[in-house]
């Protein structure tokens, strides 16, 4: 029945989808379902598209498997075989569990990258909404030159950088009550990995006990029941599987404390220079009788301890790799230097910290790096902003050369005719009229525009500008058109521009007219589009000419 030559890993019969019976196929790269009696897959998902799978709880009458895609769509499969529904489902689940992570990485990386870019750059996100979501251009087009721009430098870092552990990974498994006096914890492979990386002792336990003594499920059930997970509970019995873990942790904490701190600046034990002898002083010190603390206080102290330990461990998971590297470096250097004597080594760290502490950036002579100077070719344009460009015909280079020559000639022949100059009084009135506030300079209504136009319209206009700018950027980047690909693209971009004008710009214009605004807000946009059309037109006619 399998139409493709793909390798089929698992076939499960009697699986319902949308109330239709059929069979589920797990293949090397995708999961598919075909209705009974047909040889065509009506459902097919690449593994890379699947975000996760969910299964129905054990107690439910329907035995189902749900696939959640990255797009948010879901597909349900209902296992109907009377005898072996559960077994079938578990088989499919287990196989998927193995397969999904392999594909996940690849898909995720790209998606994450795009997601990250969108999140980091609200402008881009808006653009994305304007262009892709409203289907002016397709997502691929949108990403086409962006991802490639970034992929180069990110590929370098991505390969090395490992994702750290969220400090709250235990909080993510918040239990949910399932209605019948029980708690349900949702564990994902990520969380399990986090737990293992943070608490090596648990990993060790896991290795020792699973699957010989306990099933995976039992193991985690016990984990969540243990005092170890509930940090405010104090270990009482030694039967607890995790009692030992707690002890190991405590030892770890102790050894961490024992190691002391490298940075003497934060070493509180050495901070006090001359403490009073025991017995002197007004406070009797921290109550020496720690044994008579109440249980409550003890548990509070335990929480604090465990939080410190937890944070330290989480931090350590991130640093472990670095440390390993550093150690390697350190070893090589120490073999030749051979100066690991703490006494000689210590002061240098201290000295550096001391220097840091007494140096003040603002008191230094030079303020470090000079800021990058803005290199302006036309400073007047920078300070005045873009001036509306008059609609103009493009001059050929020959025209330009001619006119330059012409001006040159005129300048060379220039002779001042001093008899025909303006009288001084006329000149000064002219100057007065032309200076700000003068007769001729009063018409400027430019500042009023941001008061006339309501904020949301302004905002909309801004988005239009950004979107148009993006499209135009795509358009203009096609020139000079020298490959067939670019040719194709430029045509497509032109249609995109037209579509943009129709779907976005025109409604906006109409809205403006309907409202009240006489000012032509979109004039500049239209001009820009027109310029692009002109260019396109010029290019097309030239191409036609060349072809004929």
């Amino acid at each position, binding site marked *: 029945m399998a139409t493709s030559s793909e390798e089929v890993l698992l076939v499960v019969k009697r699986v319902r989808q949308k109330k239709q019976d059929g069979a589920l196929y797990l293949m090397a790269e995708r999961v598919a379902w075909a209705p009974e009696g047909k040889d065509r897959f009506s459902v097919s998902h690449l593994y890379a598209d699947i975000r996760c799978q969910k299964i129905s709880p054990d107690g439910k009458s329907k035995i189902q498997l749900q696939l959640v895609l990255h797009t948010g769509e879901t597909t349900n499969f209902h296992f109907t075989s009377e005898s072996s529904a559960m077994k079938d489902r578990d088989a499919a689940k287990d196989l998927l569990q193995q397969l999904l992570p392999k594909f996940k990485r690849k898909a995720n990386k790209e998606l994450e990258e795009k997601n990250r870019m969108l999140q980091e750059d609200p402008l881009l996100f808006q653009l994305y909404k304007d262009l892709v979501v409203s289907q002016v251009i397709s997502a691929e087009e949108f990403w086409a030159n962006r991802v490639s721009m970034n992929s180069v430098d990110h590929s370098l870092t991505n390969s090395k950088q490992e994702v750290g552990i*969220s*400090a*709250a990974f*235990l*909080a993510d498994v*918040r239990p949910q009550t399932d209605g019948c006096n029980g708690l349900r914890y949702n564990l994902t492979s990520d969380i399990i990995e986090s737990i293992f990386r943070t608490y090596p002792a648990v990993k060790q336990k896991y290795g020792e006990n699973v699957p010989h003594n306990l099933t995976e499920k039992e193991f985690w059930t016990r984990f969540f029941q243990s005092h170890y997970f509930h*940090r*405010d509970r104090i270990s009482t019995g030694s039967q607890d599987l995790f009692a030992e873990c707690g002890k190991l942790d405590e030892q770890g904490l102790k050894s*961490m*404390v024992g*190691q*002391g*701190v490298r*940075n*003497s*600046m*934060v070493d*509180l*034990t050495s*901070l*006090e*220079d*001359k*403490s*009073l*002898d*025991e*017995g*002197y*002083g*007004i406070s*009797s010190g921290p*109550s020496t*009788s720690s044994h*008579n603390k109440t249980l*409550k206080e003890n*548990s*509070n*102290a335990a*929480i*604090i*301890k465990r*939080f*410190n330990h937890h*944070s*330290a461990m*989480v*931090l350590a998971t*991130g*640093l472990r790799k670095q440390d390993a590297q550093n150690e390697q470096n350190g070893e090589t250097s120490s073999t030749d230097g051979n100066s690991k004597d703490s006494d000689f080594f210590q*002061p240098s760290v*201290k*000295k550096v910290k*001391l220097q840091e*502490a*007494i140096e*003040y*950036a*603002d*008191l230094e002579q030079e303020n470090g790096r000079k800021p990058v100077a803005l290199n302006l070719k036309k400073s007047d344009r920078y300070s005045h902003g873009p001036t509306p460009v008059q609609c103009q015909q493009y001059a050929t280079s020959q025209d330009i050369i001619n006119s330059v020559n012409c001006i040159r000639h005129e300048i060379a022949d220039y002779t001042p005719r001093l008899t025909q100059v303006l009288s001084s009084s006329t000149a000064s009135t002219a100057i007065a009229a032309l200076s700000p506030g003068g007769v001729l300079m009063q018409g400027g209504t430019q500042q009023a525009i941001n008061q006339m136009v309501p904020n949301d319209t302004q905002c909309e206009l801004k988005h239009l500008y950004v979107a148009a700018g993006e499209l135009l950027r795509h358009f203009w980047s096609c020139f000079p058109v020298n490959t067939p690909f670019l040719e194709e693209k430029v045509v497509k971009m032109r249609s995109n521009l037209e579509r943009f004008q129709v779907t976005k710009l025109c409604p906006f214009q109409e809205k403006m007219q309907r409202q009240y605004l006489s000012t032509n807000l979109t004039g500049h946009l239209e001009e820009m589009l027109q310029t692009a059309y002109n260019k396109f037109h010029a290019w097309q006619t030239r191409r036609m000419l060349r072809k004929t």
Partner: protein
Amino acid sequence: MEISLLLQTVQEWKTWTGSCSSAMGVLLSLSSSQTAGMGGGGAVELIDFSVSQVVEELRRLIDFYEKETGERSSFLALALSSRKNLCVHPEVSSLRFGKEVDGKCHSLTASYIRAQRHSDSSVQTCRFYEEFDALGRQVPLPAGIYNLDDLKSFGRRRGWCPYYLARYSILHANVVVYSYHYLLDPKIADLVSKELAKKSVVVFDEAHNIDNVCIDSMSVNITRRTLDRTQSNIETLQNTIQRRLVEGLKEANVARETDVYLSNPVLPDEILQEAVPGSIRSAEHFVGFLKRLLEYLKSRLRVQHVVQESPPQFLKDAFEKVCIDRKPLRFCAERLRSLLRTLEIADIADFSAVTLISNFATLVSTYSKGFTIIIEPFEDRTPSIANPILHFSCMDSSIAIKPVFERFQTVIITSGTLSPLDIYPKILDFRPVTMASFTMTLARACLCPLPRSSSPLFFSSPVFTSFLFLSAVIRNYGNLLLEMSSVVPDGIVAFFTSYQYMENIVASWYEQGILENIQRNKLIFIETQDAAETSMALEKYQEACENGRGAILLSVARGKVSEGIDFVHHFGRAVIMFGVPYVYTQSRLLKARLEYLRDQFQIRENDFLTFDAMRHAAQCVGRVIRGKTDYGLMIFADKRYARADKRGKLPRWIQEHITDSSLNLTIDETEDQLGLSLLTLDQLQSEEMLKKIAQIAHQI
């Protein structure tokens, strides 16, 4: 020159170059124009690390002078610390505790040990000290700036003991930097600071706590354990005396500097110049006397109810019960010293208990005013467990500092948080010549006192009681921290009013799931009562801030962290003060002191409590700002901070930046402020920008 007119001044400033070194800079510039009018200037600091920091700053200053004037200055400045920080002896310096180091050092350098070595070469001595003793005093320390490490390396190079070298060099140094215990505690001052010239200028930096240091140095606590150890001490003494009687006791007349030198706990002018009274002159008699005293103290500790009495009452009772006179009591410390010296006991650490008792005896019989004795049969929190303690508490901080004012012509008291200034002259009992509070130019509004609007007005009086634990308040605090953790980058430091309070809050935050939510944003580290553990947490905290994860440190006002650690730049982008750090007012010691202050200095209880709370609050929040380029948010999360009496007691550099618009903000509003101040921070260098921001803030 003005400087000779300056007498005792109080200053408050938060300069960015370290207030101490700035003060020193002024002094130095004056002293160089005067023709060496000043001898040693005793600059006095609190903490080991800041000692080193001041010395480093001084080094830069001198370097600068040399560069500008082109002359090589003959300036000698050095840091002084305990043996633990200065020892270079390979065995001794590896010991971890100061007491052990001192003890070991004594056992290697005591004069009779060295005398024994002449006859028996198997006796161990310290070669560094021997070298120093032989050669070190001939040539003074070459001019320069010596930090602790410099002293150590110098000592190592020459083979001289840095500790004794430093102590010897105090005599001809221009500037000495050390912890102000060395000057205030009569037990130590006698040893170290006796020889400072009268003309010296004394600068107490970070002096906001100076009254407590004074009081601490004169107070004694005696527990049942102390008495038990005293008992065994006395037995040892007795046995040694009996054994040594056969050999014959001889009084060692000349005390060498290395000898066990128990100094008198009372101030120099209180020490009687008379001969030791006959009743305790012989060793056996003295031991008998000590025994009697011990038995008396034991009987006093057997009380079932709290007793409070003055020293004269105590003396009278002692006389009636066991016939102990006042006079021999006064000589107790002195007599014990000579006894220990005679017996050639090297390890003074073993005899700390009996020393404590004899010091107590001397103190209680010397001062009749300004002290109180409180005997508590149990701790207040645990009334069922007998743990009797005798507190002999000093209530008058002016007693310990008086000799300093009398001896030195110029005393400068300075700190970042001395407000209100006028209370210090009162409690330290001196007449200041100048008082000045300097403001600072901050690049931006740094302050945001945030009383939670939704929290009930939960304090009627500044009393620490259990109704602080209202869960609504706790949740509000938790939400505040949570919100902050999601918007503030890098490090946040939160201060609570006490350990107990913090423990309880942490526990309920854990139950409410607030901590887990905070963990989504940042790692959490918590100060504990154990110094080593806290150090580790601190280091990890800094690591987390450095590698970009961001972290929150929960800490305690009055704790070690709040006193000693700076959270500069990204280590502290926000500091939150939960509640007003009032001292635990139910303590009898405090009550006694408040009473004394009211009667003697006319300081109202409430004023003092508020003053004390606010200086600690300011101390806590002041940890985050270091320089003009640094920035941080200060949040006072308690409505009471908005009241005029509290606000008025904050240092000027904070007060200036509290505007009425920044009071009573809710969390959302705070974030607006926060967004403002954090987003534009780096650009905010000019006054102009500040004004703009203020305008925007008003609009919001």
